[in-house]
């Protein structure tokens, strides 16, 4: 029988490039990687099972502990789903403040993803620059919400804390610093010869393949699928005149550039929000009641879906969460890591799709 595969190389679950445990099995012929299989299941904690039968006040904190990096969007989607069930209206000032905090969270998540990519391709200088910029963004998040990671900022009918004139001025000053730095680092990333050699044309995914695999978030938008951005359907973003960032190449370079461009876009969205922030209360009234809803929001990594069924006291009877990373990991292993030239490109391609294992397995 003819030998087709030389060695099956395992990568992970504990690997210097990866923050979280996941295992890839690469089938290789010489240096060339034919196909890759992903092995999940190291992080399964059963959060949805804990959530069932508990009041929404508890589930709210459990929901944001599904994922530490994108905790704000888990909070936001759960709260907006509960508001949809109970028919609670949000004051306009609170709706704008939600967008501000959500975009700050997206900025830190995207900068962290690009840090991971630069670290994986051993461009440590740019990686450290990006990690330092991320601290400025986290400072702004801490100034508004009081916490760096798990913020618990949104509640049904509004947000917890108001933003003062002083806070707004400091936020805009911080954003000006971030904008200046990220612009420079984007130029460094786009023009560097070394990064181009490792990124351009590696892990290419066409638009057809992206739609077939249901790639979402920056991974989908780098393959020219702009309609996968669910912020287009959010009422506050519609008021702000949001248009998604999109690129056509579909390779590692495009995925990172989409994230850089979205950081700049988030800065302009926050500026718009602070500029047209309406006066008024930040908390309305309302009680959570019985109902059933499927609600979607745009997480930093893509489409996040919550299915919630609650009883008349606001207790959660049934809940199902679908997170974006599971689609991106599948798209990555089936369409990107196919016939790549070396094992070193497997890790960088996988990191470029920004996998979040804690989200995926919950």
């Amino acid at each position, binding site marked *: 029988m003819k030998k087709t595969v030389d060695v099956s190389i395992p990568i992970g679950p*504990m690997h210097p490039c990866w*923050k979280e445990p996941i295992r890839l099995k690469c089938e290789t012929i010489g240096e060339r990687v034919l196909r890759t299989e992903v092995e999940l299941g*190291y992080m399964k*904690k*059963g959060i949805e099972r*804990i959530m069932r039968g508990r009041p929404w006040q508890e589930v709210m904190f459990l929901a944001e502990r599904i994922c530490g990096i994108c905790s704000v969007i888990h909070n936001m989607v759960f709260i907006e789903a509960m508001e949809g069930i109970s028919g609670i209206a949000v004051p306009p000032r609170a709706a704008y403040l939600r967008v501000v905090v959500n975009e700050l969270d997206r900025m830190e998540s995207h900068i962290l993803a690009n840090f991971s990519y630069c670290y994986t391709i051993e461009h440590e200088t740019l990686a450290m620059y990006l*990690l330092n910029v991320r*601290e400025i963004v986290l400072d702004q998040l801490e100034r508004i919400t009081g916490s760096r990671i798990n913020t618990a900022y949104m509640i049904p009918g509004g947000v917890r804390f108001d933003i003062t004139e002083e806070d707004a001025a400091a936020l805009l000053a911080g954003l000006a610093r971030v904008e200046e730095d990220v612009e420079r680092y984007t130029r460094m990333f786009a023009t560097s010869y070394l990064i181009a050699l490792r990124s351009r044309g590696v892990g290419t995914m066409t638009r057809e393949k992206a739609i077939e695999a249901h790639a979402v978030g920056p991974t989908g938008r780098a393959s020219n699928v702009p309609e996968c951005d669910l912020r287009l359907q959010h009422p506050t973003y519609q008021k702000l005149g949001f248009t998604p960032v999109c690129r056509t190449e579909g390779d590692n370079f495009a995925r990172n550039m989409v994230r850089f461009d979205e950081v700049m876009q988030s800065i302009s969205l926050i500026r718009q929000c602070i500029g047209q922030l309406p006066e008024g209360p930040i908390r309305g009234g309302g009680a959570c009641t019985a109902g059933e809803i499927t609600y979607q929001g745009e997480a930093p990594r893509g489409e996040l879906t919550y299915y919630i069924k609650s009883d008349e006291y606001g207790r959660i009877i049934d809940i199902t969460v679908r997170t974006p990373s599971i689609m991106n990991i599948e798209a990555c292993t089936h369409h990107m890591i196919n016939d790549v030239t070396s094992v070193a490109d497997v890790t960088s391609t996988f990191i470029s799709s920004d996998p979040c294992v804690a989200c995926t397995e919950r």
Partner: protein
Amino acid sequence: MSLLQKLKNRVRSKSIHVCFVDVGSCNGCDIEVLACLAPRYDIEQYGIYVHNNPREADILLVMGAVTPQWVDKLVAIWEKIPEPKAAIAIGNCPISGCVYNRRDSYIDPPAAKHIPIAAQVPGCPPRPTEILAAILSLAPTIFENYEEKKR
């Protein structure tokens, strides 16, 4: 104390290699450990290096409530680390299980049940400065006069 022991004490307190393992957290603690690498906190100015390789590590940072898949693997990683070694639990999860320690969940906390934990940093998640302070205060005391203590 011999001159050699003094030299070893000095070298060991100035060069600490750290390995981190995520045994089922929400990755909030992971990114706070990563934030320690940032030039603002600059973990390397204290002589702490994050390599994530257990075979050359001195200190193991454990993050997350222990999931069943990790029970044997965590012990295997702990056994791969050469002596002298210490483990630090980062965050509430390895201490108590935090929010996941409820009926119907799949976890098996605390981490001290599976490997000896020398220090604990509570918080959900703790700040990078607290993680840094824990490593810096623990490492010299654990590694001081290691050969004499062993005798």
